[in-house]
Structures are given as structure tokens and as C-alpha cells.
């Protein structure tokens, strides 16, 4: 598994970037510990204590050592450990992410397929236009519209909060829209590509009924790009849909990050960035492993598609 080994330099690269972002943050951490008015001796002492006098390389090594222990620092405001907070909020984010993917994946594949089959017809045009508008709606705007309509006008669903199905539905739909639209677009072009392939003509020539051709031959070939998109979208939801969670008051990592941003609570922001990225990398890795089993061609040609 060459791909697995490639993750190691990637992890170093990612931590190097988050580390340099942390270093570049405005303000001196020493001052935020002791305040601006301390004497130079105390500042010097603290500087030694937290290791701010060491070289950048040593500081980076220390940063990695802390990360390996699962230490992400403490919030400036609540004083709680960022890692603890994230582990509480992550399950909520996970529920939201999977719920929206359960909505987006089947619908996206279905409509993309339909659009490709009816290529050039009215159905295709309508679906294409809708999918373009889907990727053009920012989630905070579509979320507000859904909230206005379903919670404030019709009073069907609660406008915000964390909890059961009735709370989950609106944010999940909001979050699923861009993924749904992307899936429709990708499915459409993939299926159109595949429909022109000789193997499909062969299948038809053998007298396999049209539904059989669609279901087995086309869908199977379309699987790889679709898995990629689903994986990527799921990966980006799992690091906290900052905007959606904020609007609907969903108590996940995204809203946690947002609170950090408003208060300029840097350990919280950087913790969310790092954890989010690690989750993203992990999901991509899983997608690669799925490829390996889903498509024999990948096994023959190596990981380079």
C-alpha cells in the first residue's frame, strides 16, 4: 500500500502549515498569559517555560509531540481543553454529515442518471438548470430561506437547536443541496461518457434489456467518480459545516469553530482546522481503499488514475 505511506509526509506538511498559521497569529502568547504590564524578568521566565526562546524547529517538534498526545491547547475563554470539546461535538457533526449525504447521494445519482438518459430533452435542461442553481446557492442563504418557510411561516419544524429528527431535518437538507447539485452534474457527464463506450453497445447488442444495461453496466462503470465526489463532500461536512451549523444552532464542530472565530479564540480555531483536515485526509484514504476494491483497473495500474 504505497498510498498509506504517502500519508506520512502529507501529515507532516499539514501540521507544518497549521503550525505556521499558529505562529503567524497576531499577538504574543506570552503577553496573553501574563498580561502586557509584567516586568521583563517575568516575561523572560515565562518565555523559557513555554519554550518560546527555542528555535522554530524545536518548537515544531514540541507541537508535534503535543498533537500525538491529543493535546490541542485550551480555549482562551472557557479554559476547557479544545480536544475534549471537539470530542463532545464531533458526534453531532457526524450525524448531520451522514444525514445530508443520505439525502444527497441517492437523489443526486438518480437525477444525474435521468438527465443523461434524456440528454438534450426538456427533462435534461430543467435538471441541468436546477443543478447549476444548486451550486450557486450559498448554504447560509438557502438555509435562511428554508428556515423562513418551514419554521417561521408554516411552523412545521423548529428553527434551530440540536436534538432529534425534527431538528436535524432542515440543516441536513440545507447542507445536502450543494452536494446534490454536484452529484447530479458529475453523474450526468460520467454516464454520458460511459454510454458511448463500446461495452455498452455490446451489452445492448447481446439483447440485455435497457434497465439491465443501465443498472448493471452503466452504473457500475460510473461508480468510481461518484465515490470520489461522495467521499470528498462527506469529508468536508465532517470537519464541520461552519455556516449551516451556525445558522441552525446545531451544536457541532462547525459552530464551535464559528464561536472561536467571533471571539478570536485561536486555540479553538486551530484545533478545529487541524482535526477537520485530519478527518478529511482520513476520508480520502478510505475512498482510495474503496477504489481498490471497487475497480479492478486501479489494482492493475496502481493508484495513479
Amino acid at each position, binding site marked *: 500500500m504505497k498510498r498509506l505511506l504517502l500519508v506520512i*509526509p*502529507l501529515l507532516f*506538511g*499539514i501540521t507544518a*502549515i*497549521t503550525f505556521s*498559521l499558529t505562529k*503567524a*497569529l*497576531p499577538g504574543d502568547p506570552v503577553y496573553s498569559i501574563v498580561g502586557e504590564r509584567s516586568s521583563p524578568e517575568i516575561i523572560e521566565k515565562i518565555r523559557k517555560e513555554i519554550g518560546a526562546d527555542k528555535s522554530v524547529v524545536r518548537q515544531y517538534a514540541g507541537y508535534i509531540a503535543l498533537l500525538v498526545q491529543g493535546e490541542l491547547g485550551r480555549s482562551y475563554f472557557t479554559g476547557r481543553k479544545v480536544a475534549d470539546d471537539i470530542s463532545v461535538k464531533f458526534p453531532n457533526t457526524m450525524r448531520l454529515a451522514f444525514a445530508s449525504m443520505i439525502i444527497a447521494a441517492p437523489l443526486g445519482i438518480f437525477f444525474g442518471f435521468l438527465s443523461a438518459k434524456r440528454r438534450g430533452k426538456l427533462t435534461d435542461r430543467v435538471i441541468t438548470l436546477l443543478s*447549476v*442553481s444548486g*451550486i*450557486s*446557492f*450559498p*448554504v*447560509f*442563504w438557502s438555509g*435562511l*430561506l428554508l*428556515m*423562513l418557510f418551514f419554521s*417561521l411561516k408554516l411552523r412545521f419544524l423548529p428553527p434551530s437547536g440540536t436534538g432529534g429528527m425534527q431538528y436535524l431535518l432542515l440543516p441536513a437538507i440545507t447542507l445536502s443541496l450543494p452536494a446534490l447539485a454536484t452529484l447530479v452534474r*458529475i453523474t450526468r*457527464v*460520467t454516464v454520458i*461518457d460511459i454510454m458511448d463506450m463500446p461495452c455498452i453497445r455490446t451489452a445492448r447488442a447481446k439483447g440485455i434489456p435497457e434497465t439491465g444495461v443501465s443498472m448493471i453496466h452503466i452504473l457500475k462503470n460510473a461508480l468510481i*467518480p461518484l465515490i470520489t465526489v461522495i467521499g470528498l463532500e462527506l*469529508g*468536508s461536512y465532517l*470537519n*464541520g459545516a*461552519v*455556516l449551516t451549523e*451556525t*445558522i441552525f444552532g446545531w451544536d457541532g464542530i462547525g459552530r464551535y*469553530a*464559528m464561536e472561536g*472565530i*467571533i471571539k*478570536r479564540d*485561536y486555540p479553538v*480555531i*486551530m484545533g*478545529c*482546522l487541524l482535526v*477537520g*483536515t485530519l478527518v*478529511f*485526509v482520513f476520508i*480520502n484514504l478510505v475512498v482510495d481503499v474503496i477504489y481498490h476494491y471497487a475497480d479492478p483497473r486501479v489494482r492493475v495500474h496502481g493508484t495513479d488514475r
Partner: protein
Amino acid sequence: MGLTGKLALGVLAFIFLLSFAAPLIVPYDPNAIDLDSLRQAPSARHLLGTDNKGRDILARLLYGGKISIGISLLAALVSMIVGLLLGLVSGYTGGKVDTALMSLVDLILSFPAFLLAIGISIVLPAGICSVMIALSAIGWASFARLIRGHVLSLKESAFIEAARSLGCSSSRIMIVHLLPQCIPLSLVMAGLKAGGYIITEAGLSFLGLGAQPPTATWGSMISTSRVFITSASWMVFSPGIMITVTAMCFNLLGDALKEKYDIGMNKTL
């Protein structure tokens, strides 16, 4: 280009014109607070109504549009130029340069984009510039990867071999022969990117990371007015519609260009 593409281009041109000629169109200062006319519904005096500080929404919408569109276009341009050049060098030179550049690209693309954009804009002083830098710092990577792939396939074609055997230097081949071949592809990508940037920029300013108050951008207008969504919905609707229409036009334009140049890059986008 089909009808939809032309239509999208027309609407975009119209929005541009309105935004950049804003001082000629609306008599109001977008930041002038008028406490006598708080949250007024659309009327003949204020075509799109006023916001919670009595500022004219049409004025804020147009002045803000200049910023939102300006940032997105500039970021698309910067990512295009950087990505184009690095992708060209990477693809043509190959070897260690290629490995190094592509590792960097992989690294950037392995971050969730919106989160990284937040991270970069937090580090930089809040403002319009930092949003643009954040967008371009991430955006060039996908351009570079696309262009590199294109250059790799072009490199083997006969006209490049001819140029090489005539004694053209590498830099001449890259600039004179390869670069023009990459331009259509980059423009299509830039169109689609600009649509995405409109949305990302709006998202960042919704979070308060973009232009700082009192300067208006579409995202921040939604952010400040969302608490009034039931009592003064016009405050939320006009910027929301503007974002969607603009992003949609960029996307439709990108799609139309893609079809026109018959570029088979569907899967990479």
C-alpha cells in the same frame, strides 16, 4: 456559445455596470446612517428599502457588489496566472521540479478549502485583501494540476517536437507554443472558479472575516440582517438574490465556454 451562455454574460455585464457605476445610479451614501428611516420597506424613495441603521439597501447592494465581484474576479485572475505558470513549468520540466510542485499542490488540496480559507484570513489582518489572498493561495493549486495535465499531453504532440528540433529553447517553447494552448482551458476554469469564489467570499464575510463594517459586502449584509428575516425580509432577500444570480451566471458562463471549446475536463472540475 449557446443562448444560456450569452444570457449569462449579458446579466453579468449588467451587474458589473450597475456596481461600478453605483455613484451615478443611487443618490445615497451606502454607509450614511439615517435614524429617521430605520427598516423601511421598499418604496419610491428607497427602491429596495432601508436596513436597521436606515442605510439605503440598493446603495449598499451596488457598492458591496463592487467589492464582492472585484474580490472574486481578482482572486480568479491571480489563481489563474499563478496556476498557469507553475502548471506549465511543472508539466514541461518534469523531474524534481514537477515532484516538488505537485506535492505542494497535493498538500493544499488535502485541506478542506473553506476551513483553510478561514485559517488564512484569521492570520492576516481582517479586510478585503486578506480574503483575496486566502482565495488565491488555495485556488491556484487546482489550476496548476489541470494545466500540468494538459501540458503533459501537449508535450508529446508533433508541433512541440518540431519546435524542439528547430532548436527552440525550453522557455520559448513554454511561452510561445504551450502557453497559448492552455489559455482557453484556464479561462473556462476561471469562470467556474469565479462562481465558487463569489460564494466563498460571501461565506467568509458572513462570518465577519471579509471587509469590515461599515463597508458592505453581500455576505455581511445577510449576516447582519438575518435576525430581521421575519420582520424585514427585504433586507435579507436582495443580497441573497444577488449572490445567487451572480454565482449562477459565472457557472453558466463557465459551462457554456466548456462546451464551446469542447474541453473534456468534466471530471477534474
